[in-house]
């Protein structure tokens, strides 16, 4: 999977290690470890560990230019794929962007064997603890865990007691590990609530191998695909169904990890759903789809358990759905991880784990936390308070689980006397939910700063997933820089991440793409059959906004290009201003820019207003922000390329910031670029999206918008005064905006006439830019949407589109253009005052299309808008 697109010409790495060594110009890149501190790549004698050698030699062989080219490419891919922490973060905020170290962290085969076993043991242990705590609680009754430690934790979801079984607890386990300076592994934190970070680890791998695929292969590193295939097989097995309906439940796009949820959903071929998509019907959790309610078999939970059911859990938590617990009680849904698994993340469990492991598993615990104390225990508390300066104090339970985002612990040595008193008081009252850990010095791994390789302290999040017997561990992970001396929680202020490569000493099996296994399962068609109403809604409006932006660009570009020509400027100005006003006047109350310093002419002023005016309906800025939001919301429905194409708009400041001085030529170039991006997006959706309901709604949005815009423009430019004198130039302008000038010229070879233009832009069903083409496409879409059985009756939307289509089909260009004798100077006003069929038809389009939008909204989207309320 990683290398689908990653194969690059084998030039930069100069073939193999031997050549790298021979390359006397490059030589090994300098690297200096910290004395007395274990380093992953270089041992104390200064030799490179064998499993790093391929990478190190190749990396050394790169010229500085090649390294920075790789680095740039990596950043570019990060930016394009949008592995941002927060999809909707204010771009002006100085939040640390997600960045990937050019240097991966490479693990040796022997070390991995040990780690894999140790991590799987911990996963089994945490699952066993979880099942006990929600069952008989022998750990509490027999004194292995203090009752107050468990029961004072707010994440202990009491209604979930007695709803556990051996198999349904912790499906996903993750642990943050770091090596102390002496090279021993320690656990910083455990994650059992959600598969937090798994999507990021996957995205990092795909991104890095996109840029360093050859290095990855030469290092004989293990791919991730088999882990995910195993996961899919396990989840299928848990449902007992061949073709189960599996969904990833996310809190939604406002959540900073939404990217990872969407990424994972798309990779695994599962639906991405939000609380609003779900409803409990007869104690089954169902998805609201266009075709009605569809029961879901298994939910991969990426929401906090406490927020899963406002009726029985957190009353303010609406991330799941009402009566989720009742469905669980009735075995109407499988949830992975089960609600309530968060309890075993409690950091206070650490000192008790070795004994618990012996008791529950009959095994010695292989991998431990650094020394830690639970402050609810009187003796521990006394010890910690008398050694406060060596201690780090933190909450026993932190909710987030986001990689690297643990809160920094309180450093006992850094406290003022008053802060110290405050802390002691806090411990006295809230000791049950606090822990202390001993400070730790970390081992390092090489990190590329942009110009040199330096040792940095690191931590790694490893991921394990339950299989039928035991746990499978992801051969890789998400490494982050850890702030020095933190012994509890992974706190990474820089936001710097790196990929973890696990090398093998045997020849790796040929790999099977995850897509191949998906196709066997038929997961795709399943997802396509039952589109969530919410997604349909989003795609519809995405289609509309993309088309709207295209229209704005075409109009503005044509206006500016015309302005640069010499001939007939005065008549043209009228045409152009009239055309631009179709957009301006849709937001009558929004401000229009004034001429400003240096004096723009009227056309520039309007163009500038359309492109950069804030809070302006039908202005580019508003459409852009809608497009951004909707594309984000529908991201898991688009190919990654489609997202990357649109991301050109979101990531590039030129589309957001008004330039100080507007050079017409530059703006035209920019609009051309914009049109290219939009064309690429349209092509991508036409060529790469399956013709499911999602595609249909995207296209319906586009068609309605285009038909409405074109009818509006025709109406305005044909039926406004002055037509008689500049008719051909005005018609030409319309043809250009509608991108049909070339077609016109090749077909008619005459200067534009009204009849021919009407024929081409209004009636011709073969011209993809004509109104008839849009209506005809809409007719096809409307007939294909799921509908309630109404025997023998046409639906409301069907009748409406049919009326518009028939009207167009029964008309004829010459008759409609019978606004006769333009060249005979007949007064246009006079013509309009007569009953004009063309005007009537255009007006009909302009009024009926918004009605169609309303009908579709009511029929397919509205039930998504009903908000639950608490009484």
């Amino acid at each position: 999977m990683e290398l689908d697109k990653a194969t690059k010409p084998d030039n930069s790495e100069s073939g193999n290690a031997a050549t790298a060594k021979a390359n006397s110009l490059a030589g090994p890149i300098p690297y200096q470890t910290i004395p007395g501190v274990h380093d992953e790549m270089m041992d104390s004698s200064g030799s490179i560990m064998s499993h790093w050698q391929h990478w190190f030699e190749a990396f050394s062989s790169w010229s500085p230019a090649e390294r920075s080219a790789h680095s740039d490419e990596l950043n570019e891919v990060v930016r394009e794929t949008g592995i941002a922490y927060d999809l909707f973060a204010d771009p002006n905020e100085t939040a640390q962007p997600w960045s990937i170290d050019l240097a991966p962290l490479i693990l040796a085969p022997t070390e991995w064997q040990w780690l894999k076993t140790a991590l799987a043991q911990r996963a089994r242990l945490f699952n066993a603890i979880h099942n006990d705590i929600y069952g008989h609680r022998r750990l509490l009754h027999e004194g292995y865990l203090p009752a107050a430690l468990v029961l004072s934790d707010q994440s202990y979801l009491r209604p979930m007691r007695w709803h556990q079984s051996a198999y349904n607890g912790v499906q996903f386990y993750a642990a943050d590990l770091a090596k102390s300076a002496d090279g021993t592994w320690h656990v910083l934190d455990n994650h059992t609530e959600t598969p937090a970070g798994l999507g990021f680890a996957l995205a990092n791998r795909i991104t890095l191998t996109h840029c360093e695929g050859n290095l990855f292969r030469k290092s004989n590193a293990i791919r991730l695909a088999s882990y995910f295939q195993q996961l899919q097989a396990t989840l299928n097995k848990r449902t007992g169904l061949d073709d189960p309906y599996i969904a990833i439940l996310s809190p939604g796009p406002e959540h900073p990890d939404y990217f990872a949820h969407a990424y994972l959903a798309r990779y695994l071929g599962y639906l991405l759903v939000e609380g609003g998509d779900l409803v409990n019907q007869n104690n089954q959790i169902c998805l609201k789809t266009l075709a009605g309610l569809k029961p879901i078999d298994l939910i991969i939970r990426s929401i906090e358990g406490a927020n899963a059911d406002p009726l029985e859990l957190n009353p303010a938590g609406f991330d799941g759905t009402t009566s989720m617990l009742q469905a669980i009680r009735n075995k109407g849904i499988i949830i992975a991880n089960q609600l309530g698994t968060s309890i075993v993340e409690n950091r206070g469990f650490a000192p008790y784990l070795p004994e618990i492991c012996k008791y529950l598993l009959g095994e010695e615990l292989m991998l431990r936390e650094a020394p830690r104390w639970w402050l609810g225990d009187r003796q521990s508390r006394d010890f910690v308070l008398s050694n406060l300066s060596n201690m780090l104090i933190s909450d026993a339970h932190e909710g987030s689980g986001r990689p690297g985002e643990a809160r920094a612990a309180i450093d006992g040595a850094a406290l003022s006397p008053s802060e110290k008193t405050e802390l002691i008081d806090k411990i006295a009252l809230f000791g049950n939910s606090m822990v202390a850990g001993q400070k730790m010095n970390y081992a390092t791994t090489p990190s590329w700063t942009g110009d040199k390789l330096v040792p940095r302290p690191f931590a790694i999040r490893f991921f394990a997933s339950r299989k039928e017997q035991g746990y499978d561990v992801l051969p890789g992970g998400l490494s982050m820089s850890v702030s020095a001396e933190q012994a509890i929680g992974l706190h990474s202020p820089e936001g710097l991440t790196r990929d973890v490569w696990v090398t093998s000493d045997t020849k790796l099996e040929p790999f099977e793409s995850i897509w191949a296994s998906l196709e066997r399962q038929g997961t795709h068609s399943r997802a396509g059959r039952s589109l969530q109403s919410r997604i349909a809604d989003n795609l519809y409006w995405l289609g509309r906004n993309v088309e709207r932006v295209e229209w704005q660009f075409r109009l503005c570009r044509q206006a500016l290009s015309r302005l640069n020509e010499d001939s007939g400027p005065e008549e043209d100005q009228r045409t152009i201003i009239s055309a631009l006003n179709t957009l301006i006047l849709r937001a009558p109350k929004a401000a229009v820019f004034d001429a400003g310093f240096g004096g723009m002419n009227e056309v520039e002023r309007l163009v500038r207003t359309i492109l950069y005016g804030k809070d302006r309906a039908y202005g580019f800025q508003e459409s852009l922000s809608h497009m951004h939001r909707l594309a984000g919301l529908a991201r898991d429905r688009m190919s990654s390329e489609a997202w990357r194409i649109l991301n050109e708009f979101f990531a590039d400041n030129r589309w957001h910031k008004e330039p100080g001085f507007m050079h017409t030529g530059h703006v035209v170039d920019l609009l051309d670029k914009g049109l290219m991006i939009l064309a690429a997006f349209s092509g991508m959706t036409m060529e790469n999206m399956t013709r499911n309901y999602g595609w249909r709604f995207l296209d319906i949005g586009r068609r309605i918008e285009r038909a409405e815009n074109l009818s509006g423009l025709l109406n305005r430019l044909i039926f406004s005064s002055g037509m008689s004198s500049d008719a051909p130039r005005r018609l030409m302008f319309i043809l250009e905006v509608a991108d049909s000038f070339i077609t016109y010229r090749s077909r008619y070879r005459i200067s534009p006439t009204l009849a021919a233009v009407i024929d081409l832009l209004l009636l011709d069903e073969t011209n993809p830019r004509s109104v008839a083409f849009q209506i005809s496409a809409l007719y096809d879409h409307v007939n294909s949407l799921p509908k309630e059985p109404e025997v023998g009756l046409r639906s409301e939307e069907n009748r409406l589109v049919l009326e518009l289509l028939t009207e167009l089909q029964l008309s004829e260009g010459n008759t409609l253009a019978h606004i006769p004798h333009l060249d005979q100077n007949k007064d246009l006003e006079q013509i309009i005052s007569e009953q004009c069929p063309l005007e009537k038809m255009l007006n009909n389009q302009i009024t009926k299309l918004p009605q169609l939008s309303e009908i579709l909204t009511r029929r397919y989207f509205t039930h998504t808008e009903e908000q639950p309320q608490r009484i």
Partner: protein
Amino acid sequence: MRYRIAHKTDYGYSTPVAQSNHLLHLSPCTIEGQTIEKHEIVISPTPANRHDFSDYFNNPVIHLTIEEYHKLLSIHACTIVTVERDQTELLKLSQLPWESVRDAMSDADHVAEAEFTCYSNFTQPTAEIAAYGAQSFAPGRAMMDAVLDLTRRIHEDFDYDATATDVFTPVTQVFKQKSGVCQDFAHFELTCLRALGLPARYVSGYLRTYPPEGQPRLVGADASHAWISAWCPEAGWIDFDPTNNKVISDEHITLTIGRDFGDVSPISGIILGGGNHIIDVSVDVMPIDENGNEIGSSSNGQMQQAMKPSSPALSPPLPQSQGPVEGHVQEQSQSQTSDQIGPVKPVAADRTY
């Protein structure tokens, strides 16, 4: 004493509700000193799904969903119960100092009690609240003696004021303004006790009320009540009512037990649709004799229509029923008898909370 208790809740919605989900804590739990003779809950419209089960704390609970469009929802609970208990006697058993109760909580033998030393959502302490509570807990003082003292102090220091708080008022606010209703006093006392590491639980139930001198008992004018229960090894759980400054006897009828109101809210619900809503709650606690006839003072003998109260319509809309008897605060502070279990009287029949 034998009671017939009618607890009626009626919801009216401005627009139809498409789907409604409810959790009911309206059925009495099994507890020593109380015998349930009859209990039924009538719900209209008929739920599409109804599931009766026991919650984490062993309270009976009903989960129900209504899937037909409706603008009215009524949930009527009726219980006949006999209460025979007087916990004042138990107080004398408590001899061990409160510190030993606290220390016993870390023993694995006391997991069930240790549960109730933990802070819950409604019982998050502050240093100030902890200090207030600690005043009753001098070193070495017998556990229940200290709890009784704390109960008395809360009763003295806090004013009963139904307008001062709502269902979600945090204890910090209650402590600041020194006023509230039974739920607030119970939460406050629980917070004090738990801040000391002592086990204490929230009890929701009903209280027998007495009409003013010479007036008949007004049907449906009662309310849900709440108090606390504290634990010591010698006597087990003993219930204290900080609102009325007493240890409970046969005038308190226990409904459910939890860590705080959030665990045992009588009715919680999530609806789709509905627009604005009004709630009408009426509670009637009727003492009855062995034949099921109301026991009343001589003056209300003719009020027998109360046997089957039809539409009391006395309770105005309120967010959740929770108030105890009103007026007793003033009255009791005037007649300071520490062991008073005597009648408390409502000041006004049509009270607003």
